[in-house]
């Protein structure tokens, strides 16, 4: 209904119907520009090593091959990197959702000066990211005995301001009456949260879980600080070690990079709706 209203309101001003052609053409030119780098990258990964650098370059591989993938898989311990990254991403995400929801709930539903102070502290972490205090963070990790271990990546990444903020905003929209009703019925505060409030916040939990998984899967800075032993490497660190070599083996690097993308693309295909419609007014970036 509203669309017909706007059409009658916007179209007849100059007496001619606006064409969709220029807008559509522009949009699709931009789509081509945005899609090309990734398309070129993926197509290149299916070229044999000899074809990668032979001029003239062709968009499609002349001979399709998966030898780059076989090389990447056999020369590097990719199964291991996959598992490490998967463990880190899944465990951190579960803990992030739990801690963020509890913290966000406390900040939304209770009033105390120290809660306000803590909220300001949490907000401050967005302004001062880990990258900035890297050297001393490294010393902390080492002194805590977390150096070169997967918990060393997991534990420091649990708290994110974005997660806390998302849940705080969400629980603010839940009526206080619900909490009061639970209190009058004699339900304990902790139980109220776990049996009433947390189930209510399920959509928010799903959204944060998706985002958290992406942050952790693609994270570079914490693994870089914490890991040393190649057996503990996550995918990003492994890729960096290939690209940082004096002579980059492009055939392997292209394939390895594409392999690392697969879980994210699967995630996107499954949760596309949630990702695209996520109510994001809180600077979801970590």
């Amino acid at each position, binding site marked *: 209904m*509203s*669309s017909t*209203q706007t059409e009658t309101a*916007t179209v007849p001003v100059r007496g001619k119907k*606006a*064409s*969709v052609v220029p*807008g*559509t053409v*522009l*949009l*699709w030119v931009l*789509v081509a520009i945005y*899609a090309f*780098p*990734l398309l*070129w*990258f993926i197509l290149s990964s299916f070229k044999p090593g000899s074809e990668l650098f032979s001029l003239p370059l062709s968009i499609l591989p002349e001979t399709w091959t998966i030898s780059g993938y076989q090389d990447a898989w056999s020369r590097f311990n990719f199964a291991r990197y996959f598992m490490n990254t998967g463990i880190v991403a899944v465990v951190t995400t579960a803990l992030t959702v739990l801690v*963020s929801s*509890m*913290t966000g*709930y*406390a900040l939304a539903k209770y009033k*105390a000066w120290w*809660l306000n102070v803590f909220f300001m502290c*949490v907000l401050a*972490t967005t*302004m001062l990211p880990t*990258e900035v*205090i*890297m*050297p*001393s963070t*490294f*010393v*902390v990790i080492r002194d805590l005995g977390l150096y070169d271990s997967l918990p060393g990546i997991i*534990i*420091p990444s649990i*708290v994110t301001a974005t997660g*806390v903020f998302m849940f705080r905003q969400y629980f603010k929209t839940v009526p206080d*009456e619900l909490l009061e009703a639970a*209190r*009058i019925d004699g339900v*304990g*505060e*902790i139980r109220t949260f776990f049996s009433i409030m947390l189930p209510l916040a399920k959509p928010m939990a799903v959204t944060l879980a998706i985002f958290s998984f*992406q942050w952790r899967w*693609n994270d*570079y800075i914490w693994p870089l600080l914490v890991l040393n032993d190649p057996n503990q490497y996550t995918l*990003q660190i492994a*890729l960096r070690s290939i*690209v940082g070599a004096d002579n980059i083996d492009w055939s392997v690097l*292209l394939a390895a990079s594409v392999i690392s*993308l697969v879980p994210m693309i699967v995630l*996107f295909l499954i949760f*596309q709706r949630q*990702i*695209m419609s*996520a109510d*994001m007014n809180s600077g979801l970036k970590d």
Partner: protein
Amino acid sequence: MTASTAEPVEQAAPVPQHPRRRRSSIRRGQTIAPLIFIAAAVVLFALFFIWPGVFGFIYSLSDYRGFGTPDIIGFDNYTRLFGDPEFYSALGRTFLFVGFSVPLHYIIPLGLAVLLTTKLARGQAVARAVFFLPWLISPIVNGVIWRWLFGENFGFFNYFLSIFGIGPVQWQTNGELALVVVLIAGTWGGTAFTMLLFIAALRNVPQSYLEAAAIDGAMGWKRFRRITLPLLAPTTFLVVLVTTIGAMKEFAMIQALNGGGPGTENVLMVQYIYRTGFERGDIGYASAASMVLMVILIVIALIQMRFDRKDVQ
């Protein structure tokens, strides 16, 4: 809401004893419960934010090299830092990068969001998914993708230009052009998220405003500038703040794209901290650089919050 909560209290007033006891126990629960809820976050915050922050400052006054006990040497690190041309180069390069990166991260996603919400284009759902794809890609892979595309001898871009007799363009060996590639890669990777924010904001612009403007004869660019843009102000502030901080700490993508090269020409602040702290093992010195970057970020945040407040008024 206040009226509805006041009612049961008044009803309960005639029987004071029971409710009072219950209320006091509830009140105690209301103090302890939030403490339990935030406990984990507080501990983690103290361990991985306060501790490194405080010790970062202490180390910046010391000659700590990662082992042994740090000796306090006063402001020597800062004196060395401010006498180091590489530090100024990294700082200047970072500001240059932020200066170009933030407008790009604003204009391009906003433009795309407008195209994706206008009625004057078709195929928007598919287009939106394509624009969103780079969000899935890690900064490292993002760097690799553009390194592959902009290789001087083997990249598609130089091949494409050579068809027209141009080049080879020095995307890797010329410092300025290398920064251009970094900007392009950063914008490509950062578009998705900001674009979604703008799409949400554009959908929240009341139709009635736009119709009223149309009746008054304001269309196209004029209507966008006068009506839509001012209504997007809160999103704009958020985007500028987030992308400024994001650009200030840019590190991973450049690591994979050109490692801050050619040479050290495009080493930004975080990479400078990493090099001095980890490759040279000079934790004290790197901490001093960290503190400088921290102060810069605080100043940026304060300036932007000021702007934000003005806007609300």
